[in-house]
């Protein structure tokens, strides 16, 4: 088995697992596994799991608590709840604008990454060509390039292109750093679609493009959703590029706005800061809830096999 890739910037990746592996996640207990783990007493599962859940959930709860309870309250239950903090970040601190910018950047990155990666991934999956090995190697090596170290030269390039303080600088930079992984992923998904399906469509008189759209694309949907969600979550979360490339306040993204709110110290109430955090978290939580079932099982099916 050859192994490739997981991840850039924190996205766990596909895993190299046999594509045929059944989903153990939701299909209920399986006899064999249960017999094997019968050796582990229940408390050895529930105790560490409970502790870990506490570690995971208390911070989320803390943010919600601060965002919902009135200022000055020290209650540990956010009741009676107030929306004052939310209206303050959204209207007074400009989070409505930041939200819109982040959304624009996220969607544009999602679209560009998916389209370009679809083209490249199809070439890798369906063609043998001379530069293929070199292209793959370049994709893999670029996984090891820290984006933070590219800030200075990228800043120069975008200055020369007069793109500093334009959302496009961030969109292009995000797309470029998302691409290598997305291409490798998508080519893995396309490889899982039998060529014979496409060939049957060619026989029926479809051109390559029509055959692709009619036969392959529908089957790629889960994979494309996953790749697109990654691209979106990443650019939504990414901080450095927007911090460095965008300079006027109307261009700020949510993480940049949040970081200035953090930096303003005593002048901003903690409840307001927490509400800003909730605003930043909502889209990501929605996307996560949507894709989490693919993270482990579906993604291992998209296995990147060289």
């Amino acid at each position, binding site marked *: *088995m*050859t*192994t490739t890739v997981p991840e850039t*910037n924190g996205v*766990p990746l596909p*895993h*190299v*697992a046999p594509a045929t592996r059944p989903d*153990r*996640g939701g299909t209920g*207990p399986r006899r064999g596994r249960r017999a*094997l*783990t019968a*050796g582990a007493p229940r408390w050895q*599962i*529930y105790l560490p*799991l409970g502790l*870990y*859940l506490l*570690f*995971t959930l*208390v*911070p989320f709860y*803390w*943010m919600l608590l601060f965002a919902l309870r009135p200022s000055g309250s020290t209650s540990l239950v956010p009741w009676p709840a107030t929306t004052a903090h939310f209206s303050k970040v959204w209207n007074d601190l400009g989070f409505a604008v930041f939200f819109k910018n982040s959304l624009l950047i996220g969607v544009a990155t999602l679209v560009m990454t998916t389209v*370009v990666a679809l*083209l*490249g991934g199809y070439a890798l999956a369906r063609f043998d*060509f001379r530069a*293929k090995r070199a292209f*793959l*190697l370049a994709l893999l090596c670029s*996984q090891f390039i820290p*984006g*933070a*170290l590219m*800030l*200075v*030269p990228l*800043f*120069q390039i975008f200055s020369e292109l007069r793109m500093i303080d334009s959302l496009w600088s961030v969109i*292009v930079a995000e797309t*470029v*750093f998302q691409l290598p992984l997305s291409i490798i992923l998508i080519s893995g998904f396309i490889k899982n679609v039998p060529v014979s399906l496409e060939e049957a469509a060619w026989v029926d008189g479809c051109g390559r493009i029509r055959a692709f759209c009619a036969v392959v694309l529908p089957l790629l949907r889960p994979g494309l959703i996953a790749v697109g969600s990654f691209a979106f*979550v990443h650019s939504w*979360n990414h901080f*450095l590029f927007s911090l460095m490339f965008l300079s006027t306040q109307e261009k700020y993204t949510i*993480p940049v706005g*949040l*970081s200035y709110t*953090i930096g303003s110290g005593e002048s901003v109430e903690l409840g307001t*800061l*927490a509400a800003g955090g909730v605003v*930043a978290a909502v889209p990501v939580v929605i996307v*996560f809830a949507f894709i*989490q079932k693919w*993270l*482990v099982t579906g993604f*291992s099916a998209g296995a990147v096999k*060289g």
Partner: protein
Amino acid sequence: MATAVAKPPRPPRRRPSGAARRTPYVLIAPAVLLMLGFIAYPMLSVLYYSLQDYNVTKPWRNGFAGLGNFRRILFDDPLFWQSLLFSLKWVVAEVGLQLALGLALALIVNQTFVGRGLSRALVFSPWAVSGVLTTTIWMLLYNPATGISRYLADAGIGEYGTSVLSDPDTVFPAAVLAELWRGVPFFAILILADLQSIPNELYEAASVDGAGRFRRFFHITLPHLRDAIVLSTLLRAVWEFNNVDLLYTLTGGGPAGSTTTLPLYVANTGIDGHDFGYASALTTVAFVILLFCSIVYLRLSKFGSDRT
């Protein structure tokens, strides 16, 4: 990485025509152009500027500097060594702890138990949280007046007014803990995916032969996970090295520069300090260090070699 690109030979099909031979190149063209323009070109420009004095605020000094920048880095820049050392400390602590906890978590949620689906979703959830949001959340927790420590003090544990982020002794563990919170799910997800690819028959055979849980773990599970662990730790190490947003917002590199990582130092020098030449030389040095560490690590871990 050469093993990663090996692919099984495909049965030869009819010879493609000229146009068909061009098709794959047309398809990869957008990706290649973007990567050439915004990854390859910047890297070359970094190399070029690393040999120059280039500072927009001091244009009279701009020009070829030879190895002057590198000499300054190696012999005359305590901040470089301090930030490099901190970066290494950060990467080792984070990757080590995340791997250990991630492995344990993956083993637990791979068991069969009531509530497994929900537990998985919940423990994996910080995966999608950004560095800045992590900072927001943990600043609320660490706040000396209204954070966790106040409620602990109410309950008789610790003292009032404990400020972990402004004390040089506690700022590092505090930052490590915050980053762990969102970093562990990455390893847990990857390892869980790989755990599920271990054929059950192996465990059954081992059980029949009388191997206990620990022997099964060390002789089946761990060897099987090796390549995935090596690769994910390496990628994670690069990522943690690269990880500026959490530290930048949580500690701002302080107190007193004690949590400034190398990329943060580079960004400050190049963009805030306008010293592109010197920042480029720092970038080059950081690249060389990363490359060297990656190669050594892959060699030492015998990545991709056949296991028995």
